[in-house]
């Protein structure tokens, strides 16, 4: 292999190789070239997305740590803080779904651990192709099993998330895992290496050949060949992960570590070079001292291996004895593999000789590609939607049941029951609600978490969809009673080298940024996954937002299920603007993905969401739900199903809906969607208080809970039993 073939096989371009020559002032050897190849991959180097990511607002009153560390951190109150981040594991999960998903969970847990926080909650956003394809069923089944297999065993509850199916994800599933950790503000640790002569200690598992070049693999399109890259996928060991978590937390508690960093993509290379670059120091690694599980590994392989369950720590020499002792107590390996130096380089030694040395800064500064943002033609073609061509349903009961039974709207119990969502005994609101609610032991405080994504919406309108994604998360937190404070994201897109995906990426970021600014929820951490393409094309542009909110009194929260007979049900903030454009109804009932979904009015949305939250916080409302996919009627049906009480719409209400927001069409009135609506229910004795709270806002009393049927005028009349049968699907066909 000549040099050009060598760097090309490592995923580096001619331009990038020339840049390395320029930076070093000499030709790199193979080991050094390998370091650049992993650190300058899209996955580690963000070379296509970095210029766009700068748009995100990242600061706010609660923010203790913004982007650039292992996880973002926000202050909660009473000296508590939350560290959280979301990360993708799409490519590994496409070829080896169980281990791909499991190690995605393990990796994000260690990111949060690296901040010194105890991981206390997991969520995951999943996307697959439709289940009529065997391969999609296999990926779905194994990904869910992998998430459960790792999360359940390591003892961090999986408290929420979402699953959606669409043809655009066939063969390229999305597996985005989010972890939230809890920490005292004074105990936060950072990853910067400090103190010349301090020791670099590798904790946890031995290093093998698994996951070599995982980072570069994750930065390429998926093809037939991808199957042969199964060996690029790491294998997880949640038991070791659990011991590593307990050991690291104990080491921090005892004050034995200077800094801590997890080993993720690009292994020791990325951890050591990032720690060095952040601290403005150098790090020397003696590869011979890295405990190996395989024989004959080359220095380059040791440096870029992505073996799981490892952490890198900087330790003062006099404390190394105690560190080793504690590691032994927890049954995990610890090895001094290097030291902090003052030369600013990541230097690798083997057999006493320097076998490679590169300034850490150079590795951390991947070249940046600014590309032209131009609007793809498909957007205009798809936006035309003529409602006259959409036939009205003959039977609205059947339409409602078809929506409730569709894999994108039906109950997710068959997924979340495979996850332990209560270990830790902090989960106050279990999966199935708008957001998970967790308590903080020993305080009255709580926090809520949601993950949301709107791929189809972003496909039809990238900027509006990006904003609507953030808005949906804001609504979900608000209706459980939490005050949203910050978000993390995972940007899942196609190849940035192509016109449409790059345009989508840029516009989605713009929309998300505008919404984050309007809501005061800065982006404190995140991850980018590009090249989500197969031979069938790119996925829907799918930014996933993971948002965190705070409850001062966790006992004051709301859930969607109707709680009592005779409760009065009110729709707030939705109505006149509903549309079938890009709706679930249009896709599920009519098989069409078209139109221009309603653009959220961010200021108006915030006012309504803040009002709903205030009503929950004050104890006025304990039943609330946001209106989302399937529109008002599906939202009300979900509340009836969750609570086990029926509801009958007021006399004449259905007709008013059809004539008003339906503009003569009942399907538009019932199943039309817009951003910003909520449904709340209160007992009759609180009706006056509710009206007072709602003064100045548009709202609509729709009816009273009770009985075991759902009736809307003379168009819908179904029993809860029929709805339950449609809704309670086992998505795994069991």
């Amino acid at each position, binding site marked *: 292999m000549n040099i050009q073939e060598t760097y090309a096989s490592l995923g580096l371009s001619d331009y990038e190789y020339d840049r390395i020559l320029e930076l070093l002032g000499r030709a790199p050897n193979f080991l050094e070239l390998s370091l650049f190849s992993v650190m300058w991959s899209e996955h580690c180097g963000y070379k296509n997305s970095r210029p766009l990511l700068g748009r995100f607002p990242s600061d706010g009153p609660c923010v203790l740590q913004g982007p650039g560390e292992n996880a973002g951190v926000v202050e909660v109150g009473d000296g508590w803080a939350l560290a959280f981040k979301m990360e993708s594991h799409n490519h590994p999960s496409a070829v080896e779904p169980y281990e791909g998903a499991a190690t995605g969970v393990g990796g994000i847990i260690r990111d949060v651990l690296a901040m010194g926080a105890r991981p206390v909650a997991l969520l995951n956003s999943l996307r697959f192709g439709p289940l009529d394809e065997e391969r999609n069923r296999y990926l779905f089944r194994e990904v869910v099993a992998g998430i459960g297999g790792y999360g359940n065993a390591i003892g961090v509850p999986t408290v929420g998330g979402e699953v959606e199916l669409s043809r655009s994800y066939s063969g390229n599933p999305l597996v985005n895992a989010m972890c939230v950790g809890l920490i005292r503000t004074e105990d936060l640790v950072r990853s910067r290496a400090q103190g010349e002569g301090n020791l670099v200690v590798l904790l946890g598992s031995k290093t093998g050949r698994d996951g070599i070049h995982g980072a570069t693999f994750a930065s390429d399109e998926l093809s037939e060949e991808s199957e042969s890259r199964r060996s690029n996928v790491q294998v997880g060991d949640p038991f070791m992960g659990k011991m590593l978590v307990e050991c690291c937390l104990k080491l921090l508690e005892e004050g034995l570590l200077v800094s801590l960093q997890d080993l993720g993509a690009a292994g020791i290379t990325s951890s050591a070079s990032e720690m060095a670059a952040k601290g403005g120091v150098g790090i020397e690694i003696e590869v011979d001292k890295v405990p190996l599980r395989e024989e004959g590994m080359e220095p380059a392989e040791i440096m870029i291996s992505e073996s799981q369950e490892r952490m890198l720590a900087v330790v003062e020499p006099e404390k190394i004895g105690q560190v080793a002792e504690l590691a032994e107590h927890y*049954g995990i390996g610890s090895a001094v593999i290097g030291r902090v130096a003052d030369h600013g380089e990541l230097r690798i030694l083997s057999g006493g000789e320097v076998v490679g040395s590169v300034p850490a800064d150079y590795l951390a500064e991947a070249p940046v590609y600014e590309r032209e943002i131009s609007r793809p033609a498909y957007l205009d073609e798809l936006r035309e939607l003529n409602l006259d061509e959409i036939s009205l349903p003959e039977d609205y009961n059947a339409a409602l049941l078809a929506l409730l039974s569709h894999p994108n709207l039906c109950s997710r119990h068959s997924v979340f029951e495979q996850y332990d969502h209560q*270990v830790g005994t902090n989960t106050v609101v279990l999966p199935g609600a708008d957001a998970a609610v967790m308590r903080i032991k020993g305080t009255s405080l709580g926090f809520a978490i949601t993950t949301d994504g709107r791929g189809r919406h972003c496909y039809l309108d990238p900027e509006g969809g990006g904003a609507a994604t953030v808005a949906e998360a804001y609504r979900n937190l608000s209706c459980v009673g939490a005050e949203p404070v910050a978000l993390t994201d995972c940007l899942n897109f196609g190849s940035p080298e192509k016109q449409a995906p790059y345009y989508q990426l840029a516009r989605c970021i713009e929309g998300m940024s505008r919404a984050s600014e309007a809501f005061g929820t800065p982006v404190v951490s995140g991850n980018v996954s590009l090249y989500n393409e197969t031979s069938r094309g790119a996925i829907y542009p799918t930014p996933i937002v993971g948002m965190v909110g705070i409850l001062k009194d966790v006992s004051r929260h709301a859930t969607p299920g109707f709680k009592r007979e005779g409760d009065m049900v009110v729709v707030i903030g939705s109505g006149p603007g509903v549309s079938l454009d890009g709706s679930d109804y249009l896709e599920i009932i009519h098989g069409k993905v078209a139109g221009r979904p309603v653009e959220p009015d961010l200021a108006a949305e915030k006012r309504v969401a803040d009002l709903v939250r205030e009503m929950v916080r004050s104890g006025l409302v304990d039943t609330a739900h946001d209106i989302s996919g399937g529109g008002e009627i599906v939202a009300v049906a979900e509340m009836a199903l969750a609570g086990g009480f029926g509801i009958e719409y007021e006399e004449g209400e259905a007709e008013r809906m059809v004539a008003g927001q339906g503009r003569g069409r009942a399907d538009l009135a019932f199943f039309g969607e817009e951003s910003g609506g909520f449904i709340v229910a209160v007992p009759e004795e609180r009706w006056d208080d509710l009206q007072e709270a709602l003064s100045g806002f548009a709202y609509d009393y729709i009816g009273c809970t009770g009985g075991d049927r759902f009736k809307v005028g003379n168009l819908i009349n179904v029993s809860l039993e029929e709805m339950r049968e449609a809704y309670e699907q086992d998505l795994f066909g069991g």
Partner: protein
Amino acid sequence: MRIGVAIFPGSNCDRDALFAVEQMGADPVELWHADADLKAVDAVIVPGGFSYGDYLRPGAIARFAKVMGPLEEFARAGGPVLGICNGFQVLTEAHLLPGALLRNIDMRFVCRRVRVRVESTETPWTSGCESGEELMLPVAHNEGNYFADEATLKELEDEGRVVLRYLKNPNGSANDIAGVCNEGRNVVGIMPHPERVSDPVLGSEKGLKILRSVLVGARI
């Protein structure tokens, strides 16, 4: 009252159990797997989780941990021992309880709240319940499918040693068994997690009915 919670590598409900012991008004005591010392506790909880990663078989490695020596002595001498979930699996592997826990019949992990009936109040861990009382308790397990041979099942039923029974079987357990006790009735193993419903903010305190039973000191 001092209540010990055994901690194996991979236990992950140990902290929850310690917290619940506090909630029930007793003194929690950590019992580390590598120490053959029960620290003079009055009762022991073997908590849930994935001891030793559940490698080989759930509970199969944990039963050889050093702490198990004094724990077995304590149990044989009539000391109250409660195994929850993985703890139940450990106690069957250690032969302190009969039978075994197999993979769930649908081969899937199951985490949900299930209704169980208290079949026997004649144990130190159910004496605070009413006989026949129904409780909603959470389960979360991969291997909760209770199995024993015909003769053992008959013995358990005849001697009233089925402690909890599912109203709707979530895992394929023989005779819908959710919990059993030993001949001496002092060692109880249950699949549901009472410590997860021992706090009003979590929506239920039903679990405390089970855990607090031991405080009443109803020795059999």
